[in-house]
């Protein structure tokens, strides 16, 4: 039928098509823009912000926001040591994004791999992985955090480790469930008939299908990890000064909610906007990646989609 000659269907135009679909969802578009700015700020921020803004300046202690008297750097106010909130937020964005993305990446990679293995391997290997996921699931992250922080040093690296381990089971379970279904797909059988070995089949035909699901999960998890990190900071077992993250800033600023609200408000706002953006983008992605839903984001429908 005519579908074979649909415009814009060829692979080379993919990027433009995705952008067009993004443009049709204004919220997702804003979300993407915000995340882009955020990443840019985290990468380039330190180069743009003068070093002095991050230095202690007790004269400006708890300077309120939205006043230009102290210069644009202090537009969001100053913290308890008189450091520019803006500069602190940008500095914190680096470690926040670093912690969240490495924790998510780690649990994604390890959990995904284990999940794929559990889906493929039958017998006690799969059982072992699944029971391990059960154990991890009910192992309190707080104890894990204390163990890691006490036994090792309280560094960003170890916080990442703690957060990654707590999220492992989710990936293991999701990946496994997907694999169980994919394993029975016809094109997987077809590959076996061609003589493809299990590794090749997994990498070529199975993993590419699990990835989108896991990526969506990762986007949502990114938010979860940021919030978990801030909760650890609240309990005093998270990131330790002089390192700084948004979560830590909120935790430290909570004592000032009544007197200097901006100390906790702005980092909280950034956490909220980032998680919100990721979630919006993830739900947009779910629609965009699903051929049955995609028409919602496209100008006009596709012939092939008609029943």
């Amino acid at each position, binding site marked *: 039928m005519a579908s074979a000659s649909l415009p814009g269907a060829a692979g080379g135009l993919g990027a433009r098509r995705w952008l067009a679909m993004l443009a049709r969802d204004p919220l997702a578009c804003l979300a993407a823009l915000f995340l882009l700015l955020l990443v840019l700020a985290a990468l380039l921020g330190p180069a743009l912000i003068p070093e002095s803004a991050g230095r202690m300046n007790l004269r400006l202690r708890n300077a309120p926001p939205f006043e230009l008297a102290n210069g644009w750097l202090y537009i969001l106010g100053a913290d308890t040591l008189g450091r520019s909130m803006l500069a602190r937020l940008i500095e914190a964005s680096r470690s926040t994004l670093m912690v969240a993305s490495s924790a998510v990446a780690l649990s994604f990679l390890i959990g995904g791999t284990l999940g794929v293995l559990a889906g493929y391997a039958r017998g006690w290997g799969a059982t072992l992985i699944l029971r391990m996921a059960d154990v991890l699931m009910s192992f309190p992250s707080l104890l894990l955090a204390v163990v890691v922080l006490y036994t090792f040093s309280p560094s960003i690296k170890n916080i990442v480790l703690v957060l990654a381990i707590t999220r492992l089971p989710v990936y293991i379970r999701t990946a496994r469930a997907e694999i169980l279904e994919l394993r029975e*797909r*016809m*094109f997987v059988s*077809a590959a076996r008939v061609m*003589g493809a070995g299990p590794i090749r089949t997994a990498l070529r035909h199975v993993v590419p*299908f699990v990835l989108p699901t896991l990526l969506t999960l990762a986007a949502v998890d990114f938010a979860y990890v940021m919030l978990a990190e801030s909760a650890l900071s609240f309990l005093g077992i998270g990131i330790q000064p002089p390192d700084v993250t948004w979560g830590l800033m909120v935790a430290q600023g909570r004592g000032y909610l009544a007197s200097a609200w901006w100390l906790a408000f702005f980092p909280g706002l950034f956490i909220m906007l980032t998680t919100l953006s990721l979630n919006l983008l993830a739900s947009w992605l779910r629609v965009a990646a699903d051929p049955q839903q995609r028409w919602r984001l496209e100008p*006009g429908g596709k012939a*092939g989609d*008609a*029943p």
Partner: protein
Amino acid sequence: MSGHLLEVTDLAIRFGTTGGGVQAVDGISFHLDRGETLAILGESGSGKSVSASAIMAILDCPPGRIARGSILFEGRDLLSLPESERRRLNGERIAMIFQDTLAHLNPVYSVGWQIAETLQAHKGLSAREARAEAVRLMESVGIPEPASRANDYPHQFSGGQRQRLMIAMAMALKPALLVADEPTTALDVTVQAQILDLLREARDSTAMGMLLITHDLGVVADIADRVAVMYQGRIVETGPVREVLGNPQHSYTQRLLSAVPGREPPPARPPVADLPVFEARELTKHFPITGGLFRRPTGEAVRAVDGVSLTLRRGETLGIVGESGSGKSTLARMLLRLEEPTSGAILFEGKDVSSLAGPELLSFRRRVQVVFQDPFASLDPRMRVAEIIAEPWTIHRDVLPRARWNARIAELLSLVGLRPEHAARYPHQFSGGQRQRIAIARALALEPEIVICDEAVSALDVSIQAQILALLDQLQRAMGLAYLFIAHDLPVVRQIADRVAVMQRGRIVEQGPCEEVFERPQHPYTRALLAASPVPDPDAQAERRKARRELAGV
């Protein structure tokens, strides 16, 4: 109330919300009277199902939208009625049955509840009364032990029984109009015949009008009074069944009729030398039933394949026919070594397949290929056609040097009737028939000696089916392939096979040269199968129906 029961005038349905939508239905008109059956015949994508949805007000909108036209039911224009009014008509005056009954029955409610719901919703019956009525309805459509089975769930019934339940639900309030959307597709032929009988009885006893949506000319010949042929959103030809099927006017109808297998006598087959390449000996596959705390086998088992022996010779086509659950697909999977047999042996050129390993196994994999039933599922949707066809070469590196891949891909695509430039596209950009061609091209990439076709043409429209069969035949002649051709459709097998084996409940009940089995069937099951298979000729079909009744009566 003069006029027709249902009169559709200039109905047009568009898909897509903004900008360039697609006209799925483009100004069709037809009518239906009480006690009459109108068949709307068309292939996939012709717009026939969409039209039915429009009558029931269950069109997915968005993206679907009725652009213009009217649907008069008992003189009232349905399209101008308010939503609530139409809901009241649905189920009470107009009822519908669907093709995929497993998906169309709610999986989480008992069938008794689902039938009773209609009664409660429209007639305000109490739960107890509605249930009693539901049981009675189930009995009337021939469900054994209806009182206890009313508590069962859809997945606990066979496909035929589910369609009976669907009919019971639809007939609950004796509607004036029944819309039947491909009611027998995907059912075995014997079951199909029973369902058609049931529909006929229901129609005749209530004098309702029946709108039958189908792609199957045999079904049309069996049950319809008049037929409207749909093609690309338009009705191209309409008239009494006998006239349209007997003397088609429109070129599309003519093409359709000529594509039906078995209308022409099968072409002469080239002679086959007696060189067995593939042999199955007493092949058995049991799936053990497990239970208990540690999932130990209970000792019982599902006997999917039960002592099957067969031989495939070089350059030969062996057809295997059987209804769903007869074990023919399990047999194919064992022959492909995707499944280990419980007992018995498979010999490939005299060697036991299950003992193959390493290079020998690889060589087996190279020489035996498969084409699966579902062209949508058997191609990895994330790979381009070129990658799909070249994948065997990345596994068997010695077959073809990389430099020649592109040229060979182009050759293969031309061979299966596609264009070389298709290589850059993805599977979803092709139609079902085209995808099956791609699957065949992939199977041929390794220049195999044996191709196992597991229901390879079952999901395709007749016209496409005919093309693929012709292609397979042509390739066999050119390359000397041997086919193991598995199908449930007897005329298709008859057209392509040299020999045929009939499977029932895991066993081969009859085996022999094609001509002999089809002309002089020995086993009663073979005879029943043949009798139930409809032909696209109303008179011949009436004859067969009579013969079948007699056969059942014996």
